[in-house]
């Protein structure tokens, strides 16, 4: 069986449509189960932190959300680049479907970060390197979404968005390093974000389970969005 | 020399044409006819590589133009709807810059001659002060310098021109065809250039 042929067969929106439905259903169920399990571990199994007390439990949402926010941008750029290279409509749709989820996770990471910061640092916002990078990442997501929204022609939207996503992905490491360097120059916030030296195994397990739940959630939601996009496209043709 | 193969074009939600195939040989004149909005401009833009067709391809001497890019660009002149002249520059400056951009080396005397042919003075008056028709003339003056470029694509070349200028343009086109060049132009009115093959774009569903 020729593998490339098979991949392109799945890349056709019409054949992908029912598959996306199945994936969305199973991943959605999986996400719900794992999220329940992760939250249970996070709230009931994991031990109370010696220094921070109960507040630290927000990291079960915060850290996986921050992982996802960065990972989804890379995925988005990957699909966008693929779409640009092979001009497959489905890749552009996937990139577009990932963007709102990525922005959502970025926002959750920022929000939970500031909720955690209030009792821990005594302030909602600290110009910490990671928080600042995360904020800029949110702007990048919003820029991508706004650019796509401003373009009427779907093909142009796909391709223009792809160029932007690729430019963004090249810039993210540069932004991250410059921001963390900037943070060391201005020693305003002397709190470092480094993790507690020894992380309990249950804590780690909780975070991994939550991260998996977020993964499945992202897949499920983007599949639903892709289905919408496919329907819209076939509506245009008919 | 130029072949269009099974071209489809969809703009926004509307299919303009489907499965359009034709060829252009040297010394041939082709007129694209059709009502407003039938896709004449889109077809021309596809042919010169500004727009990629929804399906199908355009080949220049057997090679798809998408792969040739500037190599193909050097073989063509495209004059679009917009006159592509800068308001702040004089007609002569505009013309010599346009030619440089296209990769043509032209002398100042040649520029003056080309402008004179279209009845434009080669002075420093910025194009801003010229009338709409004179601007078109300034844009078309490029044709009289483009004799050695094989393929001409002209979008509505006769719009906003008086009878005089139409005459000069028709003469230039006829000369180019006689020289063995290919010309494709669009118009929605009939014009008196003889021997043109017509591609009619209907309103495809």
């Amino acid at each position, binding site marked *: 069986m020729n593998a490339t042929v098979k991949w392109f067969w799945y890349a056709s929106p019409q054949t992908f449509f029912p598959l996306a439905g199945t994936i969305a259903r199973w991943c959605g169920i999986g996400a719900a189960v794992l999220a329940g399990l992760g939250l249970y571990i996070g709230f009931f199994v994991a031990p109370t932190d010696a220094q921070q007390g109960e507040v630290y439990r927000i990291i079960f949402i915060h850290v996986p959300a921050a992982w996802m926010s960065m990972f989804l941008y890379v995925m988005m750029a990957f699909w966008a680049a693929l779409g640009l290279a092979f001009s497959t409509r489905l890749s552009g749709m996937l990139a577009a479907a990932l963007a709102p989820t990525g922005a959502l996770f970025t926002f959750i990471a920022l929000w939970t970060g500031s909720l955690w910061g209030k009792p821990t640092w005594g302030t909602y916002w600290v110009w910490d390197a990671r928080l600042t990078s995360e904020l800029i990442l949110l702007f990048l997501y919003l820029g991508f979404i706004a650019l796509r929204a401003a373009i009427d022609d779907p093909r142009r939207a796909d391709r223009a968005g792809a160029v932007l996503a690729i430019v963004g992905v090249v810039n993210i490491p540069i932004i991250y390093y410059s921001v963390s360097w900037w943070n060391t120059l201005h020693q305003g916030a002397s709190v470092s974000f480094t993790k507690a030296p020894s992380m309990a195994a249950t804590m780690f397990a909780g975070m991994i389970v939550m991260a998996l739940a977020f993964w499945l959630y992202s897949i499920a939601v983007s599949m639903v969005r892709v289905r919408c996009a496919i329907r819209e496209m076939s509506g245009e043709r008919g | 020399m130029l072949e269009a193969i099974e071209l489809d074009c969809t703009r926004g939600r509307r299919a303009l044409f489907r499965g359009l195939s034709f060829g252009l040989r040297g010394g041939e004149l082709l007129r694209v006819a059709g009502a407003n909005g039938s896709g004449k401009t889109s077809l021309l833009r596809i042919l010169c590589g500004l727009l990629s067709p929804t399906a199908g391809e355009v080949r220049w001497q057997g090679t798809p133009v998408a792969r040739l890019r500037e190599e193909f*660009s050097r073989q063509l002149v495209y004059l679009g709807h917009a006159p592509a002249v*800068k308001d702040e520059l004089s007609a002569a400056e505009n013309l010599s810059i346009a030619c440089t951009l*296209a990769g043509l080396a032209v002398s100042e005397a040649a520029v003056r001659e080309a402008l004179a042919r279209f009845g434009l003075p080669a002075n420093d008056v910025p194009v801003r002060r010229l009338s709409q028709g004179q601007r078109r003339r300034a844009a078309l003056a490029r044709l009289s310098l483009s004799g050695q470029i094989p393929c001409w694509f002209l979008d509505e070349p006769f719009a906003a021109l008086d009878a005089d200028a139409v005459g000069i343009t028709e003469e230039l086109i006829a000369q180019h065809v006689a020289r063995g060049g290919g010309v494709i132009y669009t118009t929605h009115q009939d014009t008196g250039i003889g021997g043109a093959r017509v591609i009619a774009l209907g309103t495809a569903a």
Partner: protein
Amino acid sequence: MVYRDLLLALRRRSDVATALLFFVIVASLFPLGIGAEPSLLRSIAPGVIWVAALLSSLLSLGRLFANDYADGTLEQMLLGGAPLGVIVAAKALAHWLIAGLPLVAIAPLIALQYDLPAHLYGVLALSLLLGTPVLSLIGAIGAALTLGLRGAGVLLSLLVLPLYVPVLILGAGSIEMVAAGLPPGGLLLLLAALLVGATALAPWAIAAALRISME
């Protein structure tokens, strides 16, 4: 091509002057909002000058391709005999000469307003000299992407400003390093590296974006 854009700018002098004036006004507003405490002004000067430079470069970027797009010249550039990457690089260079270089020239004036010590002028000019071309190059990608869209101006700033962050940090940071008595060499080298990277990569992104926008 560079010659053409410079010629156009020369015929439309007021545009260049507006961007420059904008830079000066933005920089002059900060003391009015914050107060004229000299030590405070000295400490915010590098940041203010750099933020004003970002905004003023953004202001002129909107017109980078828009005029050529409107009158059809951009189509001619796409069909030009030279590779599009070279043409857009030339346009970005022209934009820098028109919008970036004057900022470098006028920045000492702002520095004077902010009572910046004289030994910082050199690094201020050098950082602007290295950083503003990067702004032109990155900004041109945004300008090409938003070409012909509704609300292009606001969208352009949303797309481009986050990408300007490293230049801002390195540019303002290098001045602060010198102010703190440290050598700025490393940061200026990083800024130069950004410039080299942007020069190598941005033209292709701009060209790709323009082709997409012209369809």
